């Protein structure tokens, strides 16, 4: 097999800093290579460099950087324009921001066709419909006339892939092509990419997700701090990783087999897990509708019931729009259900108002997906915790000590008090968010996608942290996630939601090993698994 793309000793720097430090790899015809790494590993900047979009102020050096025998380092901008889109297709991560919001989807593809093919206007219109059909967009004629926001996330990503293949490129570079997608949609997009590969095109996939990669790639290159630490056939790297970093990455992925074990390699605190205690939240037949922009009421949550006991973790899984977050907000007392009731420690949200309601709020706290957005941007860590402790009626003179105690509980210390959230890493921010949630000594913490925005090794630390905190304090978690592996690892019981309804609920083991509802089966079948390699 001949190499379509050959990279030898590639170095990329911005100013004095080096972000990619001498990497070498090649992509052969009809092959898929995956570059895998965590944020800051240099994988995305590598991808951008391969299409000549490294960015301002970057210095790119390489012993060899050739595409189909041509030296890419010597290309001028106008030469790049012939290659980009025409011979190398580029698929970006988030289709919502990568597609022009004011331009119809068909127009987006038309632009590529006009630039790289000699087709007439009429022939292009036919080709657009063909391309959309080829990437599995139903009703391509209609969809081509729609705007990006009128399409679902999955369809948008397909449309973006259609623009990338419109110029019949030999090589497709995809930067996190499925990261923003629901698991069933992700499975469809992966199938589509696999189909493109079978058409003798070459693929370079950039991803943080080893499981996604294992389903598609022939070979994997694992990146860390600008270097490739390990490279080889996918089954070899995943089954018998040679490098410690690859091993720790693989060990950190939460899934069925990691249940009850530590993900981050740190020891568990002493003591047994507590058995589930009294009921702390009872949600009884809640229903909630929202009126859409068209004035039609849509039921976001329908007849949902569950209970949560002390020291227990109940997961809610479902895809976007399934009603998970609305259910969480109802449990938090931030949204009033149209009917049904929520009891917290025996008191119903609907029965308390004013001061009593605010007091009741202390017993149900929340940790959000994006910790940075959940802090007032003007506040330091000290102020964030001070406010939470003040609400919990801790006297002023004891608050600092309590704040330090809380930070220590989440693996930080007093040195972090004067910092601003912006100056902390993603994992540290989420730790501060957990500390704040613990400040009023709640009985329940609602975790709304608490690890979805984190790298796998940081995710592992936060999941372990949540486990530690539960062992120490006996707090109950309502754990919302779209990631079934995370839910399987972290939860005792699980609710599967679809279109606002709970289609199945029960102990995690039962639901995941012998799912009864067809939708649950579909979800579980769609999980990318490492063992598929």
């Amino acid at each position, binding site marked *: 097999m001949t190499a379509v793309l050959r990279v030898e000793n590639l170095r990329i720097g911005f100013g004095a800093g080096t972000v990619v430090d001498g990497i070498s790899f090649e992509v052969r015809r009809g092959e898929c290579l995956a570059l895998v790494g965590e944020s800051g590993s240099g994988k995305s900047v590598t991808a951008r460099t391969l299409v000549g979009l490294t960015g301002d102020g970057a210095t790119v050096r390489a012993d060899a950087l050739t595409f189909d025998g041509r030296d890419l380092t010597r290309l001028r901008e106008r030469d790049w324009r012939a290659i980009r889109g025409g011979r190398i297709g580029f698929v970006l991560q988030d289709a919502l921001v990568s597609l022009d919001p004011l331009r119809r989807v068909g127009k987006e593809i038309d632009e590529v066709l006009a630039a790289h093919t000699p087709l007439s206007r009429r022939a292009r219109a036919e080709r657009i419909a063909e391309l959309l059909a080829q990437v599995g967009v139903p009703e391509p004629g209609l969809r081509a006339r729609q705007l990006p926001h009128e399409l679902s996330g999955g369809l948008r990503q397909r449309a973006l892939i259609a623009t990338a293949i419109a110029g019949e490129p030999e090589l497709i570079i995809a930067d996190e092509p499925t990261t923003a997608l629901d698991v069933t949609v992700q499975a469809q997009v992966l199938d589509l990419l696999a189909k493109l590969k079978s058409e003798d095109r070459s693929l370079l996939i950039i991803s943080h997700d080893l499981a996604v990669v294992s389903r598609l790639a022939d070979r994997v290159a694992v990146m860390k701090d600008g270097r490739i630490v390990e490279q080889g056939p996918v089954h070899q790297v995943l089954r018998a990783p040679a490098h410690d970093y690859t091993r720790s990455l693989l060990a950190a992925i939460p899934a069925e087999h990691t249940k009850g074990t530590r993900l981050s390699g740190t020891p568990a605190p002493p003591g047994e897990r507590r058995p589930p205690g009294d009921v702390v939240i009872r949600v009884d037949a809640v229903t909630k509708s929202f009126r859409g922009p068209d004035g039609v009421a849509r039921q976001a949550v329908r007849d949902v019931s569950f209970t949560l006991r002390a020291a227990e973790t109940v997961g809610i899984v479902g895809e976007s729009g399934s009603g998970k977050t609305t259910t969480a907000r109802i449990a938090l007392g931030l949204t009033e259900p149209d009917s049904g009731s929520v009891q917290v420690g025996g008191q119903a949200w609907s029965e308390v108002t004013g001061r009593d309601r605010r007091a009741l709020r202390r017993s149900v706290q929340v940790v959000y997906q994006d910790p940075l957005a959940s802090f007032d941007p003007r506040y330091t860590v000290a102020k964030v915790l001070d*406010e939470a402790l003040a609400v919990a009626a801790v006297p002023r003179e004891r608050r600092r000590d309590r704040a330090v105690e809380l930070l220590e509980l989440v693996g930080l210390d007093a040195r972090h008090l004067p910092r601003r959230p912006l100056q902390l890493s993603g994992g540290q921010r989420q730790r501060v968010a957990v500390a704040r949630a613990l400040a009023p000594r709640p009985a329940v913490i609602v975790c709304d996608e608490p690890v979805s925005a984190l790298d796998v090794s940081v995710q592992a630390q936060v999941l372990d942290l949540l486990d530690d905190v539960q062992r120490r304090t006996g707090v109950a978690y309502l754990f919302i996630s779209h990631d079934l592996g995370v839910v399987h690892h972290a939860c005792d019981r699980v609710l599967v939601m679809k279109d606002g309804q709970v289609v199945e609920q029960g102990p995690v083991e039962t639901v995941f090993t012998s799912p009864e509802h067809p939708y649950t089966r579909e979800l579980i079948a769609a999980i990318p698994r490492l063992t598929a390699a």
Partner: protein
Amino acid sequence: MKGIRPGVWLAALVLVLLVAAALAPHLFTGQDPLAVDSARTLQPPSAEHLLGTDENGRDVYSRIVFGTRTSLLLGFGAIAIALVGGGLLGVLAGLGNRFVEGLIMRLSDVGLAFPELLLALVVITVAGGGTWNALVAIGVANIPNYARVVRAQTLSIRRSTYVEAAHALGLSGPRVVLRHVLPNAVKPVLILATIGVGTALVAGSALSFLGLGTPPPEPEWGSMLSTARNFISRAWWYGVFPGAAITLTVISVTVVGRWLRLRSEGRTS
């Protein structure tokens, strides 16, 4: 503080001098701005009168120095009124129900439909002239601008995760507004306001020029310009220097304001 362009430093220095002149004009000139000397009217700049004299023989330099206080007061005072009024109305509109929001926003639409100066003139027609009335008039005329921006900020902050997090902690509604919504909604507007100061200052001078602001013989840049107009062919210095003072002040405030804005957006220039 590295990487700040010399122009910004210069503008900041001018502002410091202006504030000093406003607080203690005596430090900058030994002459009385109101002292009439009928023997020396409309004298060109000389060692004795640095920037010449006016039609009553008063020293133009010391009148400019003593006029700084009024001019800066007009600029900053008017914007302070606009900020407080616009901030309150904007937050109210952003948080209120449909009726409150509609009322405030339609009123502000009406206000925005008229030029600021025209609105100020209406206020002065009702309330009468003078420095303080001019200040209030310009401030009120600027309220709609700020109310709009603050409302838009409030709308987005109100839906932000950190405000929801504060509610979830159990903070009361008014406390959330005071601690989280108000400061974050007003912060970007504060920077906008530094640029507004220049415009308000010009508006104040314009009102004085029309004879509706600071009454003579009190020194004020705008009213000096107004009288200088009659002698422009015989005494260029009388009009040019107060005009230059206004221009320099507005440019300095705007340069510093622009720098603050860029910095707050994470860009530096």
